[in-house]
């Protein structure tokens, strides 16, 4: 098998260790890569990923004590970084703060038990998961963005022409200027707040059990929309052209219709949450 351009040439080019605050250690790792996936799993502490020019992944990790180590593994198309807690580690002593820069085309998979996760300005796929941490994704175009959380608040900002999938049990999800061929939020009791143009002729699917769904769009939005709550109140601020639906349209609990050229398909569904489609 050929694939010179895809191979990973270097292992660790530089490992710099310097003392910071008492007990803290700073480590820096660099990997020369092509199109690879970077996976970072951290128990305690934030992970922030930003774009960088060139073809090197630069990982700067601040270890808060010697109760935590970093395991690394690198194979043909994947780099794994894993914070490894040692016996007696606590949320404080086991904390590692990651600040990572990656070149275009690198996909990232990030997991932290309770440290903030942030990915911005990336061009590869982004998968973020945390049971409780705040998750932020910003300034991303033409990628797959997947977010999974239990209680952590999720904020997606300025994401264009992307496949977006968010699954959250009770954390609130805010989407600001997000569009693409598929934008999906699966929520249980947290709230969903969308402010955007429902653009790109995409499919937008927001659903919840008891969480409220609020979506704001301009009058120029081109969409066909169906909104329906089994037990919650449903409010629509737009004048829509009528359309056929698979449910009974009833004022106050459901509405459906089209606007402008109806390029995008929007489905808002809740079992007991309120739904409000607002004019921006």
């Amino acid at each position, binding site marked *: 098998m050929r694939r010179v351009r*895809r191979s990973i040439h270097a292992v660790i080019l530089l490992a710099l260790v310097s003392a910071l605050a008492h007990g803290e250690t700073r480590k820096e790792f660099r990997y020369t890569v092509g199109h690879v996936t970077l996976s970072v799993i951290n128990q305690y502490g934030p992970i922030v990923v930003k774009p960088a020019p060139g073809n090197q992944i630069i990982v700067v990790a601040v270890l808060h004590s010697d109760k935590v180590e970093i395991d690394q593994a690198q194979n043909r198309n994947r780099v794994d970084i894993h914070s490894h807690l040692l016996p007696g580690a606590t949320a404080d002593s086991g904390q590692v703060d990651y600040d990572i820069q990656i070149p275009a085309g690198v996909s990232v998979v990030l*997991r932290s038990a309770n440290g903030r996760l942030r990915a911005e300005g990336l061009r590869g796929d982004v998968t973020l998961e945390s049971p409780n941490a705040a998750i932020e994704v910003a300034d991303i175009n033409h990628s797959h963005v997947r977010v999974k959380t239990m209680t952590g608040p999720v904020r997606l900002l300025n994401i264009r022409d992307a496949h977006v999938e968010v*699954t959250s049990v009770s954390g609130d999800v805010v989407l600001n200027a997000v569009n693409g061929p598929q934008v999906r939020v699966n929520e*249980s009791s947290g709230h969903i707040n969308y402010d955007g143009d429902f653009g790109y002729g995409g499919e937008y699917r927001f659903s919840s059990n008891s969480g409220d769904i609020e979506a704001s769009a301009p009058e120029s939005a081109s969409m066909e929309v169906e909104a329906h709550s089994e037990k919650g109140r449903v409010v629509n601020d737009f004048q829509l052209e009528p359309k056929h639906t698979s*449910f009974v349209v009833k004022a106050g609990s459901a509405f459906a219709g089209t606007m402008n050229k109806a390029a995008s398909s929007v489905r808002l569904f809740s079992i007991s949450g309120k739904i409000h489609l607002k004019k921006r």
Partner: protein
Amino acid sequence: MNCAEFQKALPEFAEPQRDTALQAHLRSCSDCSLLVSDLDSIVAAAPSLAASEDPNPQIWLQLEAALKNEGLIRQPAAPLLVPPPQEGRGWRLSWALPVAAAVALTIGLLVYRPSTHQNLQSTGKTAVTEPAAAVQTAAATNAGINEDQDLLEVVGTQSPTMRAEYAANLKDVNAYIRDAEDAAKANPDDEQAQESVMNAYEQRSMLYEMAMDRSLP
């Protein structure tokens, strides 16, 4: 060399810039230079399409069933991914909980995706009839209570706070499953109500995978 000759020779060269004759033409022709640059961009982006998609979790379940049927899987799984807790039952949980999660998701798929269901039948694979799916759903609900307790025990070995958080969220998700199933039964023609059942099961599956550190690609 003119453009036609250059473009005729192009397929033979992985890197035309390195061939002297082609290089000379490239320097003098902006159109061909642009063509080569565009093709290079396509070639450079192509590897990003490899290993870029996650398969449906159902595939593993079907594969596992086939491996068992053929006798390739011959023994219960051993403890590999989760350190055994003190009581010594972790070996079973490490294997059973993710499977339980996947089964929950499969049931969601069967309930929600009649088209997939028909597709399985038509391809001769194991398929479940509608009443059987309903029975499985009820059985799963009962079994689910025990599975939740097992999961919370495992999570509780890490921290009591985390156990409480998982307990609260499992309660949320189980309520979602009940409500979604009620809504789907009450509105059999409502596509969104039907889809909500699938969404609810997907959430439960996510919680199990997250707890077992198995959700990430």
